[in-house]
C-alpha cells in the first residue's frame, strides 16, 4: 500500500497540535503562508480599536458615566437573549423569530406574578418555562408540519402577542411599585457605595447593583449553557443543526433535538424578558419588537471582533457583542458635538451602519489576509 492517507497533516488555517506548523501544501495545492494570519488578526483588532475609539470620542462629547453604566446594565439583561439568538441562528441553523414574542412573554409572566405578590426571583423560572414552551411549539410546528422555521416562528410570535396581552391585562403594566430583583439589596448597596465612593456616586448605585447581580446571573447561565452543550445531549443537538444528514445516518431523530434546542433558546430569551421588565420598571406587550435585530447585532459583532473558535468562547463572544452594541447605541444617543445630537429615530440607522461596518471590515480583513 502506497503512502496511506493520514490525518496528521491538515490543509486548514491553524496548525495541528501534533506537528510544528509549516507552510505546507494542502490537498488542493494552495499555499498558506503564516504571515497572512497575523495580517488578518491585526485587521480585526484594528477594527475593534476603531470602534472603541469612536465610542471614546463620543464619550468625549458627553462626560456622563451614568449613560455607560446604564447601557452596560441594559446590555447584561439582554445577554441571555443574545445567547438564545446565537443558539438558534448559528448552532441549530434555525432562523427563529419567536424570540420577539417569548421576550415579551417573559416580561408578561413576570408582570402577572409580581402584581400578584410573587417574589421577583420566582418569576425567573416561570418566565423561562413559559418562553421555552413557546419555543417548543415553534419547533414542533416547523419540524413536524414541515413549515419553514421563519414562518413557524412568525406564526407563534403573532399568536403570543394576544396571549401576552391577556396575561398582562393591558398593553403596558407599570411594575415600579412591585420592586424588582434589586429590591432586597438596594439600600444596603447604596450605603456601601456612599461609604466607599462618596455621596455623589450614590446616583450610580442602582445601575451598578444591577450590573453586579445580572452580571453574575449571566455568567451562571453562560456556564450552564456551555456545560450542556458539551454534554452528550448537547453535542447531539449541535450536530443536528450542523449536519442533520449525518445525525439521521447515525440513527438520531434530529427533529427532537432541534425542538428541544429552540425551546431552550427561547427559554433563555424569556429570562432576558423577565430581567428587562424588572429592571426597566414596566412590562409592555411590544417590548420584544426589535429584539431580533439587537440579538443578531450582538452575534455578528461578537463573532467578528472576538472570532470564537469553541462554543464557550462563542457564548462569551455574543455577550460581549451585546454589551458593545448597547454601548454603541448609547453613544449614538448621547453624542453631542457642539449641538449636533442624534435623534432617537436615528438610532436604528446607527445600528444598521454599525452592523454594516462590522460585517464589511470582517470581509475586508479576510481579503487582505489572502
Amino acid at each position, binding site marked *: 500500500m502506497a503512502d496511506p492517507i493520514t490525518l496528521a497533516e491538515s490543509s486548514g488555517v491553524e496548525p495541528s497540535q501534533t506537528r510544528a506548523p509549516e507552510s505546507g501544501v494542502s490537498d488542493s495545492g494552495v499555499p498558506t503562508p503564516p504571515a497572512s494570519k497575523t495580517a488578518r488578526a491585526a485587521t480585526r483588532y484594528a477594527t475593534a480599536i476603531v470602534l472603541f475609539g469612536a465610542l471614546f470620542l463620543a464619550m468625549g462629547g458627553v462626560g456622563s458615566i451614568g*449613560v455607560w453604566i446604564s447601557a452596560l446594565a441594559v446590555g447584561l439583561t439582554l445577554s441571555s437573549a443574545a445567547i438564545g439568538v446565537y443558539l438558534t441562528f448559528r448552532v441549530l441553523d434555525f432562523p427563529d423569530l419567536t424570540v420577539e414574542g417569548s421576550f415579551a412573554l417573559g416580561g408578561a409572566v413576570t408582570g402577572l406574578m409580581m402584581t400578584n405578590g410573587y417574589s421577583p426571583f420566582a418569576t425567573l423560572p416561570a418566565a423561562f418555562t413559559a418562553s421555552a414552551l413557546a419555543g417548543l411549539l415553534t419547533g414542533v410546528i416547523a419540524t413536524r408540519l414541515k413549515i419553514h422555521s421563519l414562518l413557524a416562528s412568525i406564526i407563534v410570535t403573532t399568536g403570543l402577542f394576544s396571549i401576552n396581552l391577556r396575561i398582562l391585562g393591558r*398593553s403596558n403594566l*407599570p411594575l415600579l411599585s412591585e420592586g424588582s430583583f434589586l429590591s432586597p439589596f438596594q439600600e444596603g448597596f447604596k450605603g456601601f457605595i456612599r461609604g466607599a465612593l462618596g455621596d455623589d456616586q*450614590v446616583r450610580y448605585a442602582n445601575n451598578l447593583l444591577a450590573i453586579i447581580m445580572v452580571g453574575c446571573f449571566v455568567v451562571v447561565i453562560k456556564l450552564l449553557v456551555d456545560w450542556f452543550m458539551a454534554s452528550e445531549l448537547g453535542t447531539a443537538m449541535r450536530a443536528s443543526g450542523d449536519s442533520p444528514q449525518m445525525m439521521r445516518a447515525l440513527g438520531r431523530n434530529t427533529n427532537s433535538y432541534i425542538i428541544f434546542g429552540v425551546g431552550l433558546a427561547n427559554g433563555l430569551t424569556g429570562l432576558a424578558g423577565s430581567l428587562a421588565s424588572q429592571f426597566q420598571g414596566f412590562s409592555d406587550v411590544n417590548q420584544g419588537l426589535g429584539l431580533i435585530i439587537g440579538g443578531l447585532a450582538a452575534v455578528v459583532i461578537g463573532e467578528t471582533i472576538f472570532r470564537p473558535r469553541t462554543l464557550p468562547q462563542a457564548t462569551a463572544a455574543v455577550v460581549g457583542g451585546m454589551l458593545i452594541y448597547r454601548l454603541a447605541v448609547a453613544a449614538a444617543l448621547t453624542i453631542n458635538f457642539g449641538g449636533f445630537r442624534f435623534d432617537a*429615530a436615528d438610532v436604528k440607522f446607527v445600528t444598521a451602519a454599525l452592523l454594516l461596518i462590522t460585517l464589511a471590515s470582517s470581509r475586508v480583513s479576510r481579503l487582505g489576509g489572502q
Partner: protein
Amino acid sequence: MIRDRRSSRQLVLWLALALCTLLLAACGGNSGEDDAVSSDDETQSPETESEDTSADDDSEMSDDEPDAEPEGEAYTVGLLNLVQNPTLIAIQDAFVAELAAGGYVEGENLTIISANADGDFASLPTLVQSQIDEGVDILAITTTPMLQAALNVTQDLDDPPLIVFNAVTDPYAAGIAVAPDDHPEWIIGAQMFPNIDVTVNLLQELFPGGTIGYLYNPSEANSVAQTEELEKLLADTDLTLEAATITDSSEVRTAAESLIALNPDVLFYSQDSTVGDGVAGLIQVANDNAIPLISNDPQSVSVGAALGIVVQFEENGRQTGEMAAQYLDGSLDPATFVIPRTEGFFYMINNDSIAAQGLEVPQEILDQAVDQTPEG
C-alpha cells in the same frame, strides 16, 4: 407516506388542543388592574381599583325596553378606547355618568357597546366599523389614534353616527379639525390639552434660570403640538430647554440618562403616551440622581413622578357626556357646535418622590394637591 400523513393530522389536532389550553390558561390568568391603592379624596384619583366598565367586555344588551319607560326611543352608544389605563377609564366613566344624569341610563333607554384596541393600531378601523355595523347612534371615541381611525371610516358615509371625542390632546394637530368652529359636521368633542402655561409659570418659579430636561416622541402629533407650545412659552422665561426624543418606550431610560449629562434642574414631560409607557425608567433616573420629575400625565404621579399639573380629565369626560345627552335630546346641532377645551387643572403630588427627588413644593400647592403617594 400514508403513515406520515396520519401522524401529521394527529399532531395538528394535538397542537390545536394545546393552543386552546394555553389560551384558556392565559384568560384565567388575567390579573386585572390592582396597581396603586385608590385614595379617598374629593376628586377621584385616577388609580381606581374597580373597572366595571372594563373596556374589553362586550356589554351588549337586548333592545327590549320595560314598558314603564316614558321615553319611547332607545339609543346605542359605542365606547371606543385605544388602551386600558385608569385615567382613560375614569374619563369614560364620567362620560357614561353624565349621560345617565341627562336621562340616558344604561339598561333602560341606552345600550352601551365597548371595545378596546389594547394598543393594536391595526385593529382600530375594524373596531370602529363593527360598532357602526351594530347601528350605534353615537360613537364615543377616546384618544387621538382612535379618533383618526373613526374619521377615516366614517368620512365617506352618507349618514355617519355622531362622533364625540374625549382624551384627545390636540384634534387640530391631528388633522381632525381646522379650528374649534371648523370641523367635520358629525365630529364634536372636548379637547384635553395640558396646562402648559401653568406648568411653565411653576417651573419658572421653582427653578429660575434653570435647565429643563424634556422628553417626547416626535412621531406623536400631539407631542409635537405640546412641545411647540412649550417652546413658545419658554421663550419669555430664562429657562433653558434640553429635549431628548424617543420612538419607543424602551428608549426612555437611556434618553433620560443622556439628559442627566446636561445637568438639568428638573425633568419634565407633558402628555406623551410613549414616554408615559416607559415612565418607570424616567422615574428611576430621577430618583437615582435626585432630580425632580414633573409632568402633565395623570398616570405618572402615583407611579413615581413628584408633581403633576393635570387637566381635570374627569371634567373632560363629563363635558363630552353632556354633549352626547344634549344631542340625544335634540338640543345640540353638531354642525354648528364649537369644540371647547376642558378648562381646569389640579395638582397631584407623590410625597415619597418629592422626598427622594428633592423637590421643594410651595405650600399652596401642597395644600390643594391630590395625594397620590402609594400606601405602605
